[in-house]
């Protein structure tokens, strides 16, 4: 069998069709491209609601040998945040003491409370008014998670309790 050898024997691929397809793919990726939003987060460990135990300044961790419930031994600091009708902070109470509505005052108060090595607060319970806006709540959470415990660890254990409307502190 004899092969015919023309003058231009080299094979040329038609790239136009491939380019069309590539442009289609490119258009798809450009149109569906959504840049990842730069967001931060506050990591929390939220234990299930348990009975509150008042902090005992004299108690030491592991002192009560009969206590088999690990959560019961966690001393809790109760912060009450009452909200007004517009969802802003009305008042903040740390334990029974009022700190007004400024979170900077709360920051100083918590710092003083938590640096005391005799107090064994490891968990903060936030009693929050049901109407409080999320941005206002985050200001309080921000202050709480910045606090350091006497052992140097960051406070990350928080619990939430909803203050029913009409309850003490709530409008």
């Amino acid at each position: 069998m004899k092969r015919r050898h023309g003058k231009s024997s080299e094979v040329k691929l038609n790239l136009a069709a491939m380019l069309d397809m590539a442009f289609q793919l490119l258009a798809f990726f450009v149109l569906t491209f959504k840049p990842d939003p730069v967001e931060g987060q506050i990591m929390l460990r939220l234990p299930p609601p348990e009975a509150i135990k008042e902090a005992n300044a004299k108690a030491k961790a592991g002192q009560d040998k009969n206590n088999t419930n690990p959560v019961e031994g966690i001393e809790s600091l109760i912060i009450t945040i009452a909200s007004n009708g517009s969802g802003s902070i009305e008042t903040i109470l740390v334990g029974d003491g009022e700190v007004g509505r400024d979170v900077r005052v709360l920051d100083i108060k918590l710092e003083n409370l938590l640096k005391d090595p005799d107090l064994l607060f490891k968990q903060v319970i936030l009693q929050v008014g049901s109407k409080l806006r999320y941005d206002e709540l985050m200001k309080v959470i921000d202050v709480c998670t910045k606090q350091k415990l006497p052992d140097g660890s960051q406070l990350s254990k928080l619990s939430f309790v909803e203050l029913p409307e009409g309850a003490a502190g709530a409008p």
Partner: protein
Amino acid sequence: MSGAQAEGEADLTPILDMVFQLITFFMLVMNFKAAAFDMTLKLPVVGSAMPIDTKGQEELLILNLSPTGDLTVYGEKVDMVRYIAEEARVSRMTAKGKGMDIKDGDELPTMIVIRSDEASRFKDLYHVIKSCQEHGYRKFALKAKRPE
């Protein structure tokens, strides 16, 4: 110029190379995770909010909470209680497949990521957190914007 092939033909190889490079770029930066975010929500600005990369080691369940208290997942409004219960069941089964024995009420390894609008009320957020806790979720991340 060769007489027989006088017509001008553009060499498409470089443009094809460039287009393939662009496609590769967009494929690599494509982020399917962003589809779970409801971008209409306005997150609050919090100073200590830090971007944390779990490097895919941790399973995340992203929940978007609107100012009206509706829960949206991948752009769909869902029945919160039923959705969380179903996700907890799936998470338990996945953990079982990995050899972990997680019973009802035990802590689940999944982290709940809550993206809530700054105007949403605490009662709605608390409802979500409480439902998650009832189904064994303990790890939470509250999303916020970092200050500029």
